[in-house]
C-alpha cells in the first residue's frame, strides 16, 4: 500500500480521536499524565464540526455553544458522522492553551498560547524561545495524549470497555 493510500484509509483515526477526547472530557476522564510529570487537563469548548456522507453527498454540521452537552453533535455522532474539527482547551499547571484541532492533518488552528512574559524590544530571542517552549509544550502534550489513544485503540480494552462506554455516552445524548 502506498503512503497516501494508508493516510486516506486511516483518516477515521483522527475523527475517532476527537470523539474520544470529547467523551473523556465529558465523563470526568479528561486529565492525562505527562511523561515528565505533571498533568494535562483537556476539554472541548464552544465549537465542534462534524462531517458525514449520505446519498445527498457530504454533509457538514457545526455546533457551537457554551455547554458541552451539545445534544445535536452527539446525535450526529450516533448517525455515523465524524468530528473533523473541535475547539480544544488544554491546561497544564497554571497555563492554558486554546486551539482548533483538525482531524485530517492534526493541524492546529487559531492557536493561542499563554501570555509571553519576555519583552520583544529588550530581548527578541527571549520572546522566540519562550514562545517556542509554550508551543512545543502543548504540541508534545497532544502527541502524548494521541499516543495514549493509539495504544488504547490497539488494546483489548478498547472493545471490552472503552468503546461500549463511549457508545453509551453517545446514546445518552439522543
Amino acid at each position, binding site marked *: *500500500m502506498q*503512503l497516501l493510500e*494508508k*493516510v486516506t*484509509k*486511516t*483518516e*477515521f*483515526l*483522527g475523527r*475517532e*480521536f476527537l*470523539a474520544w477526547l470529547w467523551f473523556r472530557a465529558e465523563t470526568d476522564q479528561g486529565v492525562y499524565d505527562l511523561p515528565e510529570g505533571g498533568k494535562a487537563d483537556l476539554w472541548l469548548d464552544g465549537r465542534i464540526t462534524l462531517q458525514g456522507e449520505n446519498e445527498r453527498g457530504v454533509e457538514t454540521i457545526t455546533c457551537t455553544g457554551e455547554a458541552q452537552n451539545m445534544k445535536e453533535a452527539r446525535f450526529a*455522532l*450516533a*448517525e*455515523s458522522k465524524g468530528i473533523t474539527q473541535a475547539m480544544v482547551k488544554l491546561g497544564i499547571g497554571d497555563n492554558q492553551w486554546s486551539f482548533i484541532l*483538525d*482531524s*485530517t*492533518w*492534526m*493541524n*492546529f*488552528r*487559531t*492557536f*493561542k*498560547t499563554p501570555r509571553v512574559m519576555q519583552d*520583544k524590544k529588550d530581548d*527578541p*530571542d527571549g*520572546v*522566540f*524561545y519562550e*514562545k*517556542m517552549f509554550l*508551543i*512545543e509544550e502543548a*504540541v508534545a502534550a497532544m*502527541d502524548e495524549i*494521541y*499516543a495514549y489513544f*493509539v*495504544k488504547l*485503540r*490497539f488494546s483489548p480494552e*478498547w472493545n471490552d470497555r472503552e*468503546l461500549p462506554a*463511549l*457508545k*453509551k455516552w*453517545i*446514546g445518552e445524548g439522543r
Partner: protein
Amino acid sequence: MGLISGSGSFTRYMVEGDLENNFMETLSERISPYLFRNLDENSLEGRSMGWVNIMDMFDNRFSGLEFLKEPYIAMTLRIDERKVPPTALTQHCLEAENRIKEAENLDFLSRTRRSEIKEAVNMRLLKRAIPVARTYDMIWNYSTSFVLFGGVNNKLCDEFAKLFLQTFDFHLQAVCPYTLGSRFLKKEGASPELLDELTPSDFAEEK
C-alpha cells in the same frame, strides 16, 4: 502576525532523513538563493516568494545568521503579490475594446483580439498595483526533526514543502493520524503495519 509574534494556525511536518555532519556550516549557502527579493516596481512580476528573518519581515539578508536559534532553524516565508482587482480589469478592458472598435470601425472583436487586449491592460494596470505581503513562520527543530509551518491552506503548504526541499534538500512528511500513529508504534517496538489492519469503530449504540 506570525506564530512567534502572535497567535495563528500551523501545520506540522517531519523531516525525512538525517543531517550531514557539516549541514550547519552549509546553511547560509543553502538559504541564500531562496531569500526573499522585493518586487521590482518597473517589472511586470506579479509575485515574489522567499525567506526573511522571523523577527523582522523586512530583513532578507540574515547578516548575523539570525535563522539559527539552536536547536531551531527559524525563518519566515514571505510572499508578496500584486494583483489587478477583477472589477477594475473588466472595466478597463471594456474601455480599451470600445476605443479600438471605434478607431478601427469594427462591430465586434474576435476572441483572440479580446484576449490580447486583456493581457495588455492587465500588464499596464499591474504596474500601478500595490503588492500585498503575507508572511508564514517556519520553525524546524532539528533535534526532534519536527517542522512547524504557520499555514494550513493545502496549496500554500505544497508550495512551502517545495521551497523547503529546494532550500535544504530534505523532503517533508506531513503529520497526520497515520504518520503520527506509526511513529508511536515504532517507538513502542510495535509494527506500524498494524495501522493498515485497523477498521473504523461503529459508534452507533446497539438497540
